[in-house]
């Protein structure tokens, strides 16, 4: 059952990720990514991380990508210019590099990615949401506080960037 769900979710996530890249229309790219992220969240549940899965949907799908959509609609960008790419070499070299990168990465991960002798993990032994909370508020308190400052800075920064008044 889990195996089937994982395979299905992974397939859908990959397909829609590819659709995101291939779509000529940025809005459809965003929507494809929403679907991809949603199924990634399903995979996260299978990896015993329901909290992260919920965050994934709420923050990524529900907020970040909506923001993308909002900006796309605000700027009313419909289609990528259909003209020829003015940098063909970039395309060819980039494609080749990506191919090499992917092959190497997959080879590395499938061959050496799994530490040997790892006992099988079970949901019962997996950390619960309370463990995550405790870790965030104890061992990772300083990064957590720093993160809140970062978010505040981003909030202010975004506001300053787009505000039309007080432009220096």
């Amino acid at each position, binding site marked *: 059952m889990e195996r089937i769900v994982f395979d299905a979710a992974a397939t859908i996530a990959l397909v829609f990720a590819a659709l995101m890249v291939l779509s000529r229309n940025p809005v459809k790219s965003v929507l494809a990514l929403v679907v991809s992220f949603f199924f990634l969240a399903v995979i996260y549940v299978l990896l015993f991380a329901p909290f992260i899965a919920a965050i994934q949907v709420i923050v990524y799908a529900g907020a970040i990508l909506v*923001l993308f959509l909002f900006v796309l609609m605000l*700027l009313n960008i419909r289609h990528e210019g259909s003209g020829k790419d003015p940098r063909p070499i970039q395309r060819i070299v980039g494609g080749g590099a990506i191919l090499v*990168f992917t092959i190497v990465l997959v080879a590395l991960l499938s061959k050496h990615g*799994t530490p040997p002798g790892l006992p099988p993990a079970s949901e019962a032994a997996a950390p619960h949401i309370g463990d995550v909370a405790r870790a965030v508020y104890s061992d990772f308190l300083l990064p957590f506080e720093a993160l809140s400052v970062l978010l505040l800075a*981003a909030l202010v920064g975004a506001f300053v960037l787009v505000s039309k008044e007080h432009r220096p």
Partner: protein
Amino acid sequence: MIGKIPLADVLVVSAALFAIGLAGALLRRTAIVIFLSIELMMNAANLALLGYGAALGTVDGQIAVFFVIAIAAAEASVGLAIFVALFRHTETIDVNKINLLKW
């Protein structure tokens, strides 16, 4: 093995997602799609982190992903604000046409 799922499978899915994101980031021309691809790459990394976290039975993977998501939110807000400001000036977000910062 995480439940019935081998860790290697999770990692391969993560690698594939990352490669797709990389292709989008390098080959697409619309800044927002490039940005989306970067978000996808981040998620690929998140998937790997969660995979390892689950396989090792530690909380660290989830913590890392938690932070990554929050940072992604900050990044998206600032990045999109930059795009909006950029669009107001140049009327485009095609990265091939935005090359003012050269030599």
